[in-house]
């Protein structure tokens, strides 16, 4: 108990310092996020110190982050985890945390629309698509002001020109091959997402109407996944159908992605490798020395 408090105090101090740095750099977006985290941490500290005791004993609500891909989970901010676990209402989980949850389930670059749907279906999420529009820019700004200051960043998928792909979000802890998109990747990623959603849904004990609806929508667009049947789709059948189509595309897509990833790691600096090389127009605007993708 007391070392949890120690941890929290350290975290609160860190966050305060972070807010101060951000304010000095006039980076209001980062400051706002950090402040929100700070408040969450302080609230957790309050609960712990006033001895509500079993606050820490709350198990994670079932199915909250069951399919964590492993890279992000151990490094997550504790205060965040605590807030999420307390289940104090979705507002305490920040937008970026909710997006990260959804992306960790999907395990592939995804559009805002899908992220929101997954978050609502499986995590009782409260995010709406418009909230995601400025997210990537905020993350980039935060990364530029203090690189690698956070356990993970939500960043852009990279196109074959190594510029940021429109509307696709990824997580910085993923391998480079997963964060680039070739011509076949949108389809492969869609099938991967459907596969992951189906598996997740199949592993849940009861039925989840929102999840069923999401899966039904996805299954409709996969041949042989059960578009002829009424009622909720069979997750096993969706997995099977998605696998079958994936087999057709995987080889070419893996090859394309490996090439792109190689180019990205050799040509781009840290910021660009996560958030994409500037397109020519932005280069012209900022007359930056960054190397554009071709």
């Amino acid at each position: 108990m007391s070392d949890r408090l120690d941890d929290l105090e350290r975290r609160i101090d860190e966050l305060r310092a972070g807010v101060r740095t951000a304010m000095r750099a006039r980076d209001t977006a980062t400051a706002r996020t950090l402040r929100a985290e700070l408040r969450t941490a302080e609230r957790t500290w309050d609960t712990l110190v006033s001895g509500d005791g079993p606050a820490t004993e709350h198990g994670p609500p079932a199915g909250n982050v069951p399919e964590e891909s492993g890279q992000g989970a151990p490094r997550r901010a504790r205060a965040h985890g605590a807030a999420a676990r307390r289940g104090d209402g979705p507002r305490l989980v920040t937008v970026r945390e909710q997006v990260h949850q959804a992306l960790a389930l999907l395990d592939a670059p995804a559009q805002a629309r899908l992220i929101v749907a997954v978050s609502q279906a499986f995590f009782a999420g409260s995010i709406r698509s418009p909230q995601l529009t400025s997210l990537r820019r905020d993350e980039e700004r935060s990364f530029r002001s203090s690189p690698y200051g956070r356990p993970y960043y939500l960043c852009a998928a990279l196109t074959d020109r190594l510029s940021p792909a429109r509307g696709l979000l990824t997580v910085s802890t993923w391998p480079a091959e997963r964060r680039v998109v070739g011509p076949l990747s949108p389809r492969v990623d869609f099938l991967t997402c459907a596969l992951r959603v189906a598996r997740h849904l199949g592993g849940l004990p009861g039925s989840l109407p929102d999840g069923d609806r999401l899966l039904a929508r996805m299954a409709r667009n996969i041949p042989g996944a059960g578009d002829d049947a009424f009622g909720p789709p069979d997750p096993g059948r969706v997995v099977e159908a998605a696998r079958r189509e994936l087999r057709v595309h995987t080889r070419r897509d893996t090859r394309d992605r490996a090439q792109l990833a190689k180019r990205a790691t050799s040509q781009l600096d840290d910021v660009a490798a996560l958030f994409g090389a500037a397109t020519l127009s932005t280069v012209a605007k900022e007359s930056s020395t960054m190397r554009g993708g071709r």
Partner: protein
Amino acid sequence: MNRLDALRGTTPQKPHDARAIAALAANPGCSRRALMDGAGIDKDAAARHLGFPAPFGQSPFAITRGNAFEALVKADGCAELLRMLRDLLGLPIAEVAYHDVENVGAHLRHTHTRTLIDRAVRQEDAGTVYDHPLFTLDIAGHTAYLEPDVVAFQLGGRFHIVEIKSFAVIDGQADPAAVAAAARQAAVYVLALRGLLAELGHDPLRVSHEVVLVCPENFANRPVATLVDVRRELAVLRRQLTRMTTLDRLLDGLPDDLTFDLLPGEDGLPTRPVAELADAVRGAAARYAPDCLSTCDLCFFCRDEARQEGASDLLGRHVRDELGGVASVGEVLGLADGTRDAAAGQEEIARLLRNAERLRRECLT
């Protein structure tokens, strides 16, 4: 082209979009519209200055609905679209490559579209779906940029234009006017893409004359695709566009000092006397039809003019065509009750009208 520039005068030119170009094909007989579009005149501003503003443009709700539906169809690498194309055209499972042209900056989009289409035709790196392409089309010597919200994709060596519209197809039936408008708009894109292929030295006929129209099905939001043949729209459009480049014949009939200039002042507001502008606009003959109300900015002005003249145009295109050669309603009535003698070439229609009048009188008495 100097003559057209003189018609426009000092008013800045208005670029054409696909909707405007498609509307051209809706009323090919109207020389007022042909002249004003050829000169790139802002018809909306002219109509407002004349005191006949058209309640024109799409409602914001319709635009939002259209965008939402389009996003649904294109979501997740065009997953919905691929399903429909597999059903409709038998697209092979392996054909799923998706290229988003908009990933390059806005100023490079047209060049990038060209490169991608060229590569696709050469079979080097054939993609299947091209999202947000940017085409160009030459309109009376000016380049118009067409930004189709549509997707051009390649199937068995042929390109198809995909047009996404948010009006519903209920039990296999859709609003004929809406379908016709969509077909006209898609025809503009087909023409532009054919032009692009010809420019690149490929066979323009590799662009199919069948466009894929995607609409919501029944009362749900589930998209459904249908093939629409746009050969007729293409022919009309092509004729109209060549007519615009050969406007000389129309221009020869106009007085030399005629201009549609609005004389915009410092603040961009038109300063030209309204009566003078109205006279100038009347100088070019219009061919009003009730359909103009949904396609042309000047519609209210032309309708007012037609009413004052008592023109038979007001009764619709069908009636006007039946009454070929008789321009006004008064004239028609005169011919019918015999108070007016038929001029040369009107004998046939006069006989028909008199018969009709006799039948009517017999029925009523």
